[in-house]
C-alpha cells in the first residue's frame, strides 16, 4: 500500500518523525474496507461449503410444510394464544394483587408479596411447569380446574404474576402522589381512589413494558410441552416437534418458528411505538 506522507493532521507538535501517520478519515476508510472484505469472504465460503440442497431438504421441504397446514394455525397457534392470553390475564390480576400487597401498610402483606415475587422471578419457568405436574401427587385428589388448559394457564400465570407485580408496582408508584390526595380530598376512600384514579393511570403507564412481557410469555408458553399435552391441546412448539419427529424433517420447526415471529415481531414493534408515544407525551 502506498501512503502519502502528508496525510497526517497538521498538528504542530504531535508528529513523530519517521513514523507515518494516517489521518482519522483514512483510518476509517481502511477499517471499513477490512470489514467488507471479511464479510464477502465469509459469504463466498458459505455459498461453496454449505450443502444447500441438503439444507433445503431438511429445513424447507415444501410438501412437509404443507402437511402442517392448516393445523399449525387452527390448532397450534390457537392453543398458544389460549395459553398465553389465559396466563396473561390471570397473571395480571395476580400481579395487581401482589403489587397492592407490596405497597400495603400491613407489614405481613408486604413480606408475603416480596417472598412470592423473589421466589418465582428467581426460578426457571420450566421448573414451575414440572412442579405443576407433581401437584396431584403432593395434594391427593387435587385437580387444576380446566384440565390441560388450566395447568398450562396456571403455570404461565405463576410465572407472569411475579413479573407483572414488579411492573405494576413501579406503575402505581409513578402516579404522582397529588392524584391520590386530590381524590381523597374529594371524599373518596382509599380503595375508591385506587380504583377510580390511581390504577387507571398506572395501567396506562405500564402498557408498553407489559406488551413486552406478553411477548416473553408467548415464548414461555412453549413450556406447556413438558406437561405432556397431546391432541387438540398442543401448542406451537409441541406441534412442530411432533410433526418433525414423524416426518424426520426439521421443516415443521421452521414453520412454527415463522408462526411465532408472525405474532412476536408486530407486538414488539407495537410496544416500541407505545413507548415512544408515551415518552413524547410526558
Amino acid at each position, binding site marked *: 500500500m502506498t501512503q502519502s506522507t502528508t496525510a497526517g493532521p497538521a498538528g504542530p507538535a504531535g508528529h513523530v518523525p519517521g513514523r507515518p501517520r494516517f489521518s482519522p478519515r483514512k483510518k476509517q476508510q481502511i477499517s471499513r474496507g477490512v470489514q467488507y472484505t471479511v464479510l464477502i469472504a465469509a459469504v463466498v465460503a458459505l455459498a461453496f461449503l454449505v450443502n444447500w440442497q441438503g439444507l433445503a431438504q431438511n429445513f424447507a421441504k415444501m410438501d412437509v410444510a404443507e402437511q402442517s397446514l392448516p393445523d399449525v394455525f387452527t390448532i397450534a397457534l390457537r392453543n398458544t394464544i389460549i395459553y398465553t392470553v389465559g396466563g396473561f390475564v390471570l397473571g395480571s390480576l395476580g400481579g395487581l394483587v401482589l403489587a397492592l400487597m407490596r405497597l400495603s401498610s400491613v407489614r405481613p402483606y408486604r413480606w408475603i408479596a416480596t417472598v412470592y415475587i423473589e421466589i418465582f422471578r428467581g426460578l426457571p419457568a420450566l421448573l414451575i411447569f414440572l412442579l405443576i405436574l407433581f401437584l396431584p401427587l403432593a395434594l391427593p385428589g387435587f385437580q387444576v380446574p380446566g384440565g390441560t388448559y388450566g395447568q398450562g394457564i396456571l403455570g404461565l400465570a405463576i410465572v407472569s404474576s411475579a413479573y407483572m407485580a414488579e411492573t405494576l408496582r413501579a406503575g402505581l408508584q409513578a402516579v404522582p402522589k*397529588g392524584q391520590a390526595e*386530590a381524590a381523597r*380530598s*374529594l*371524599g*373518596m376512600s382509599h380503595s*375508591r381512589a385506587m380504583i377510580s384514579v390511581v390504577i387507571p393511570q398506572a395501567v*396506562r403507564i405500564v402498557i408498553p413494558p407489559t406488551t413486552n412481557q406478553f411477548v416473553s410469555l408467548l415464548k414461555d408458553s412453549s413450556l406447556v410441552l413438558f406437561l405432556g399435552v397431546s391432541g387438540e391441546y398442543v401448542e406451537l412448539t409441541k406441534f412442530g416437534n411432533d410433526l418433525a419427529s414423524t416426518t424426520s424433517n426439521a421443516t415443521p420447526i421452521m414453520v412454527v418458528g415463522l408462526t411465532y415471529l408472525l405474532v412476536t415481531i408486530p407486538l414488539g414493534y407495537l410496544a416500541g411505538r407505545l413507548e415512544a408515544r408515551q415518552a413524547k407525551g410526558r
Partner: protein
Amino acid sequence: MPHAVQIENLHKSFGSLEVLKGVDFTVDEGQVVCVIGPSGSGKSTLLRCVNLLEQPTQGKVSVGGVELTDPDVDIDAARRRLGMVFQSFNLFPHLSVLRNVMIAQQRVLKRGRAEAERVARENLGKVGVAEKCDAFPLQLSGGQQQRVAIARALAMDPALMLFDEPTSALDPELVGDVLAVMRKLAQDGMTMLVVTHEMGFAREVADRVVFMDGGVIVEEGPPDQVIGNPQHERTRTFLKRVLDPGHADDGAGAAPPAA
C-alpha cells in the same frame, strides 16, 4: 354556632423536623382567611392538617363542630364538606374535564349520572370553562386547569374551601382569571382558607390575614393591620421582600435576616 374551622395547639413533625409548633386559630362561617408567610414556614402543612391529608402529631382540628382528629371520626365523610384546591391543580389526566367534575359526585355522593352532569356543567360555567367540558386536562392552560379544579371541588357542595397557593404555578397573565373566580366565591359567602402570596388579593378579599413563620403564627388580624401596618419585625421583613422583590436578591428563604 360552632366555628367553621377551629384549630387548637396544632403540632406536626416530620421525623425530627417540627414544622408546626403549636398553632391556634379559628375561621368563622362566611369568612375568608388568608395565610401568608415565607417558604417553608408550614403554611401548606397547616392547610393539609385541616383536611387530614397530614395527620397532626398533636392538637385538635374541628370543622363545623366535628372533631376530625378524633380517631373514630369517618374522615371520608368529613372531607366531603371540605373542598381543596392544590398549587399543581391535580386534575385527573385520564378523565375529560366533565368527568373530572362528575366522578366524585357519582362515586362519593352517589348522585345519578344526569344530576352529576348537570351540577358539573353548572359549576364549570360558574368558573368560565363551560366550553371545555370534553377536553382533557393537559389540553388546557394552567389557568383553565385551576378553574376546573375549583369547579370540581365546588361540585361537592363544600361548606369550606381550602386553597394552597392556587396561582403560584400560573403564568402571570393567567393569575387574574383564577383570582376573579375566588373573589366571586368570597362574595357569594363561601368560607375560605387561602394560602397565598397575592398580597393584593389578601388585602381586598380577606376578612383576616394570618402571618406564619417558623411553624407558629406570628401575627394575625384584619388585612389593613397585618399587611398595611404590621406590628412585628418578621412580618415587616417578609412583606418588604414580597412587595418589593427588587430587593429580594437574597432569595425567598425562610431565615429572618439580621435586621
